[in-house]
């Protein structure tokens, strides 16, 4: 029990931690945006039952959701070069998170699109909208609104799971902390620091999501 917790050590490391945090935020932000975009496209393919493509998307979603992200990351970073695809650590990390997050977002958005009432489809048809026009102009704007909470939850998961990228050596928050620990052995201080940072990020975002959910629900509240 000779371990002495030294708070001042954490402040001394704020530059390294800041750089790590910045990398975490950067890789997460890019991945979240791409995952949402691909998720919406995939959901449209699924809901419109585009021949052939729909089954491919369904298979992709099922495979990604039922295999560990960590193994997917290793497959992309170590496996793809042997078939001639060379990606940097950062790009591999983004690719892995996008492929993972998009699979969840396809399901999230699909749920939202299916919640769009059939009456609207009939009304759209009566106005002469083609199915694709109905989808893009009416179903997507409405459905994405319904799906927003679950899409944002998946986005928060992407932020949390960016920690997995320390395993392939991306210098994000967890990597920075582990590196300092292996050099200076201030284990508890470092974990306390990154624990609090992650907690603040995720808790803050969750509260924002809940507030947004309430705000989106407001037009539908009765008196």
């Amino acid at each position, binding site marked *: *029990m000779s*371990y002495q917790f030294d708070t001042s050590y954490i402040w001394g490391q704020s530059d390294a931690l800041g750089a790590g945090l910045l990398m975490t935020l950067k890789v997460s932000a890019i991945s979240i945006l791409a995952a949402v975009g691909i998720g919406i496209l995939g959901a449209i393919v699924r809901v419109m039952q585009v021949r052939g493509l729909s089954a491919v998307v369904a298979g992709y979603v099922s*495979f990604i959701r*039922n*295999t*560990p*992200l*960590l*193994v*997917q990351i*290793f*497959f992309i970073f*170590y*496996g*793809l*070069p*042997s*078939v001639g695809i060379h990606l940097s650590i950062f790009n591999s990390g983004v690719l892995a998170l996008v492929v993972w997050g998009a699979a969840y977002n396809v399901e999230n958005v699909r749920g939202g699109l299916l919640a769009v009432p059939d009456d609207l489809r009939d009304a759209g048809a009566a106005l002469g909208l083609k199915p694709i026009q109905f989808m893009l102009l009416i179903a997507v704007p409405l459905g994405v609104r319904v799906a927003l909470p679950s899409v944002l939850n998946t986005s928060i998961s992407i932020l*949390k*799971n*960016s*920690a*997995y990228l*320390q*395993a392939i050596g991306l210098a994000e928050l*967890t990597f920075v902390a*582990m590196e300092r*620990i292996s050099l200076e052995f201030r*284990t*508890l201080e470092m*974990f306390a620091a*990154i*624990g609090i940072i*992650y*907690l603040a990020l*995720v*808790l803050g975002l*969750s509260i924002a999501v809940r507030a947004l959910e309430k705000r989106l629900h407001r037009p539908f509240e009765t008196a």
Partner: protein
Amino acid sequence: MQLIVENYILFGNGLAWTFGLAVLTLVFATVISLFVGIMSITRNRLLTVAARIYVEVFRDIPLLVSLFFIYFGAPLIGLPLDPFSAAVVTLSLWGGANGAEIVRGGFNAIPEHQRTSAAALGLKPWQIYWYVIAPQALLPIIPPFTGLFTLLVQSTSLAALIGVPELFRMAQIVVERTTIMEGYSPAFTIFGAILVVYYLISAALNALTSRLERAMQHRLKARGAADMGSVRRQAEESV
């Protein structure tokens, strides 16, 4: 393909460790889930706040960070853990936090009139919970719970990072060894094959789940219990 056949003993051992890890974790996580989930629906403020803090901490901090923290941090407070124990402890606590949310969702989804009707019939509080609330709340949360199980089985792969010789660690060893000894990297095939193995395990679990779900729906319908779909939806939303 040849590599997989040549190293079948390694992969077999790895799979055994993965299963061991998964089974222990599932059992502990279930116990913690029920315990903490029930804690969080009591009227005791201290218990609910304690449950809330535990759930938020483990759900919001990346699992990987918790795992490293417990593995590297425990020796510093005089409690050295071997990699396997550290993985079991972390995964159980993480699964327990997520499971507690499911349990809480299940209980919260029971309509208030079930409680008041039971009270009107003269049932004591423990009877209300044991005979009326618990059966209706716990059966519908089994499907989201098995979803959590699938996630836990996948998460056992994280144990490789602290040196548990489970399936994914074995794959890493084979890839590293072949790269050094043979001069080429079999990562694509080996990690690809491992992905397929995990997929098959999850698919088996999912098949089991949907059978269970159908059987349950039958039973609940026969009893005329509260609408299971709504209970389940609420429980799932909490994951």
